[in-house]
């Protein structure tokens, strides 16, 4: 029971990270119908940026944890958003309206570029450090196996909830959100009605990248490590989460993220650690084959 509870907490923490990244996939796919293959690597870049700023702040003597976290959060989100914007501008916008495979190939190219860019710039070694927010709350102290709820996990849950509330508000209540939903339904019609489609899509990428940056910072705090290859597998799992939740749906992405996180952690805990990624990928295949609309997605009607 205690073991189960511990796995549940760990699974939800991992799932929150997947959920945050999945929102970026789901929003982009919803609007331009393209898998932003480089999104996982944008997440990786954000962990690198966070790490550099963290080291910089410590080296100039700012060591108060809340101040450090706030500065990193703002700076990393801003810089990662800039990366998201640039990637869209360079690799995707020139291909808008082109044939279907072109943006996907260009996205794969961009993903390779970002990975190797980070590897060459920051080195291929794993960057590990001790947690900034150590400690946690211990439950069931008298039992054989006590359950830990780490402070970094609490921070992660709070952050995810906060970000979700803000983004749901943006998408449902603001003019930008309205423009995004209009583009999602019909890009051509939206542009005829005076919506700046290019700007809306750019902002969607910026939003996705800033969420990835939040996830990146949280990942760095929670696991205390990153490397240039960190984005690839996490990216695919987050995409799985987006599909599982129903692509195009924000709450679906988070729900899917939590589900994938739980499945992965429980599979690793109860079945086999070696094959936990196989489990995640199999779920991706199974969901796409048997439940293509996902948990909260709308069924796609095909007109001939």
């Amino acid at each position, binding site marked *: 029971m205690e073991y189960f509870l511990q796995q549940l907490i760990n699974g939800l923490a991992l799932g929150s990270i997947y959920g945050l990244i999945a929102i970026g996939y789901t929003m982009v796919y919803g609007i331009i119908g*393209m*898998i932003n293959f480089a999104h996982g690597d944008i997440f990786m*870049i954000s962990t*690198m*940026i966070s*790490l*550099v700023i963290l*080291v*910089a702040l410590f*080296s100039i003597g700012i060591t108060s944890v809340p101040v450090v976290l706030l500065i990193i959060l703002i700076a990393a989100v801003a*810089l990662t958003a*800039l990366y998201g914007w*640039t990637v869209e*501008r*360079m*690799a995707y*916008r*020139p*291909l808008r*309206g082109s*044939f*279907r*495979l*072109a*943006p*996907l*190939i*260009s996205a*794969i*190219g*961009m*993903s*390779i*570029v970002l*990975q*190797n*860019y*980070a590897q*060459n*710039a*920051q*080195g291929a*070694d794993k*960057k590990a*450090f001790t947690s900034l927010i150590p400690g946690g709350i211990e439950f069931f102290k008298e039992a054989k196996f006590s359950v830990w709820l780490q402070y970094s996990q609490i921070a992660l849950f709070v952050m995810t909830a906060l970000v979700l509330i803000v983004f749901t508000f943006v998408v449902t209540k603001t003019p930008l959100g309205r423009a995004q939903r209009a583009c999602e339904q019909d890009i051509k019609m939206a542009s005829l009605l005076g919506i700046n489609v*290019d700007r809306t899509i750019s902002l969607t990428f910026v939003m996705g990248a800033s969420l990835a940056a939040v996830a990146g910072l949280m990942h760095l705090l929670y696991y205390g490590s990153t490397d240039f290859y960190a984005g*690839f597998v996490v990216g*695919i799992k987050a995409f*799985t989460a987006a*599909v599982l939740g129903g692509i195009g749906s924000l709450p679906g992405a988070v729900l899917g993220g939590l589900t994938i996180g739980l499945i992965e952690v429980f599979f690793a805990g109860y079945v086999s650690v*070696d*094959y936990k*990624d*196989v489990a995640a*990928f199999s779920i991706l*295949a199974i969901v*796409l*084959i048997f439940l*293509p609309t996902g948990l909260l997605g709308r069924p796609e009607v095909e007109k*001939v």
Partner: protein
Amino acid sequence: MTDTVQPAPAAEAPVETPPAKAPHPARALLKDAGLWALLTFALMTPVVGFKTVARGNRYEFDNNMDVVLGFTVLVFLGRILLNLTIWSKPKTATARAASGSVFDSPTAVRLKQFIRPLLILIALSYPFLAIWTSGGMVTGRYWVDLGILVMTYVLLGWGLNIVVGLAGLLDLGYVAFYAVGAYSFALLTMNFGMSFWMCLPLAGIFAAFFGVVLGFPVLRLRGDYLAIVTLAFGEIIRLVLINWREFTGGASGINQIPRPSFFGLEFVNGPGGFADFFGLAFSPVHRLIFFYYVILALAFIVLIVTIRLRRLPIGRAWEAMREDEIACRSLGISIVNTKLTAFALGAMFGGFAGTVFAARQGYISPSDFTFIQSALIVAIVVLGGLGSNLGVVFSALVLIGGVEMLRNLTFIKELFGDGFDPVQYRMLIFGLVMVVIMVWKPRGLISSRTPTIFLKEKKTVTSDMISEGHG
């Protein structure tokens, strides 16, 4: 949206500032270049400028701001230069349609008739040309090796071309079949002592079987979803290869795979060997030349099969399915059979390539079969122009041969100092080439198609007329 298909340099894409509205052309130019330089500076400072290095138990910075500043200046000057030259030309839809591809102009079409036999001739005589021009067996070895590498990717590209180019099914896990072929050969020959020539067809059959196994569940999927499931399939195969240690040797792989022989003649030094039998001086390059011709023969088989299949009902069904699956189904074509044959055939050729790879290396491990390999093969097919066999050859030459050539660019080392190693930036440049070619030519290098059915005369179909398909 339609006026943005423009060439982009390595670092950025154009900003559409209509010159009529700008207050002064020079000022607009400077402003644009300045903004992009600022962007470059902001992007690169945190990631490139300060390299975190662990010293003792804490992180310190290696300052690389000189690189950042260098790139900032480069972007500033580059944008001014590009804005003044390439992007200054008016870009209208008609002008672009008229310009077409360099490979599609009438002279190029005439040239193409000569290119094919010429390429075949070069391919046939390549090992001897390489040894002759580089002056001897020892120096020629590298070039023969490079030839094998490029031919392997041509073979893989042609195999995948059946799945992606003809049937329009985007497969991002093609490397799985390559792996199945390689491991089938390695395990069969290690465990049962079977020869290379017995294993080759068996490995092809195994790979084809895996193709059907993958194809069956994904019959209903299309486009991006199909791509992502095949990617997952490729990763699953790799993870199983890593973790099933008793069977596959785990992450360390299988080594000391026996080398194939030339009709019973081993490539060894001494009596009874290949060199001894033909009265030649022994050289390890003989084996490489043999491999080159094996893979060349396989590639030609694939090519001929592909060309012939396009004229058979099944090939026509593939192309019809690529263009419109629903219309295809309503005309009574079995989508199940059509898709599965495409997957199986493509997988079989991938299996052949894997067998040759394992036999040549003598050593395989799961790290040879990563997603990057799949992406590389897909990139070769798409950048070459979907469905074009000649395009695959060109893009394999550019992507594999060209990037490999970076090793030889010693003058770069002299330019940037000794610490600069271009090989380190191989994949970075490879990714940039992928993006730039896509932005420059979304349809690939050779974007026209020769129709298989025609009335009276054979017209080349330009890329503008090829319908989207549902891939």
